[in-house]
């Protein structure tokens, strides 16, 4: 049919913007818990935030099924935008997705249903992008492990009550397991499966 809903554009400069975003994600993954800037000129349709949308444009393509949460699934504009600009298929099966995006991270999602990879191909696991309002580093669970000199704290807000418990379980699956990216408005922080998490109290 004729295209009725106007699509909003993706990156201003697809090559340089996605490379800059990739660099931020790479640095964030290499130094878990560190906040890296992500600042492309991007106005994605709601409920996607600019950082999460930039990550999706950078990482997802036609070979990576993307799982989206209820908030995005209800927005035909957002779904169309993801399909058009990434070429990725939006899937309803959590287990087959390579990327997942949560527009509202305060709602609990059964993370263990995402694909944690196989013992011989742990890299095939789902990378979960969580949209958050802010990322605090003076409170929250204590992180140690590869890429962290001594220890540091990470507290993206808001997260569901069950998130950190599931994240601890996820770290126990190593070398299998999910990797998490927290996307605040213009920043990204990573929690890869290799990071050890010590919950407060």
């Amino acid at each position, binding site marked *: 049919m*004729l*295209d009725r809903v*106007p*699509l*909003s*554009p*993706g990156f201003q400069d*697809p090559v340089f913007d996605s490379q800059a975003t990739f660099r931020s994600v790479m640095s964030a993954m290499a130094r878990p818990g560190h906040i890296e800037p992500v600042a492309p000129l991007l106005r994605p349709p709601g409920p996607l935030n600019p950082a999460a949308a930039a990550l999706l444009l950078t990482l997802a393509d036609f070979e990576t099924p993307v799982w989206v949460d209820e908030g995005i699934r209800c927005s035909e504009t957002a779904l169309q935008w993801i399909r*058009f600009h990434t070429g990725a298929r939006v899937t309803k099966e959590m287990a087959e997705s390579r990327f997942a995006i949560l527009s509202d991270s305060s709602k609990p999602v059964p993370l263990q249903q995402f694909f944690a990879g196989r013992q011989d191909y742990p890299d095939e696991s789902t990378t979960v992008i969580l949209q958050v309002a802010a990322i605090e580093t003076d409170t929250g669970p204590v992180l140690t492990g590869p890429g962290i000199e001594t220890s540091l704290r990470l507290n993206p807000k808001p997260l569901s009550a069950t998130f950190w418990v599931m994240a601890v379980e996820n770290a126990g699956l190593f070398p299998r397991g999910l990797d998490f990216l927290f996307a605040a408005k213009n920043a990204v922080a990573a929690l890869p499966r290799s990071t050890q998490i010590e919950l407060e109290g």
Partner: protein
Amino acid sequence: MTRDPEPSAADKLITARRQAMSAFAQAQQDELLTGISDTPGSGNWSYVRKPEIGLIMTQGRIGGSGAPFNIGEVTVTRCAVVIASGETGHATIMGRDREKARLAALADALWQNPESRPVVEARIVSPIVARLAADDALLRAEADATKVDFYTMARGED
């Protein structure tokens, strides 16, 4: 499989748009440029996807009905624009001409707007279709002129 005897209005619209997009893709750049400058609303547009150059695999069928096979990859440029009235136009053209891809996408967007469609049909689509038909006829005439009828000469028995 049963075939609908009378195509619906929506189907007709899709067929018409397909023909128009095909004409835009085969147009010369100046054919699009002059046609578009005559169309109202053509000055107000923005990119949805800037022109990108890539490769697609073309397929063919022997005799038009055989099993599809891959001929080879062809360089294409794709582009999408949105015009002020909200229509999004898409284009995929052969070659690396970014400006032509933009013009073809813009022409598609203008075609979708019911108000500018008659102008686009008259000033862009029709001239291109006519020119393509003339080119095709010329090529056929040239090929026909070289046609040779082979026949077996009657052999005198005894």
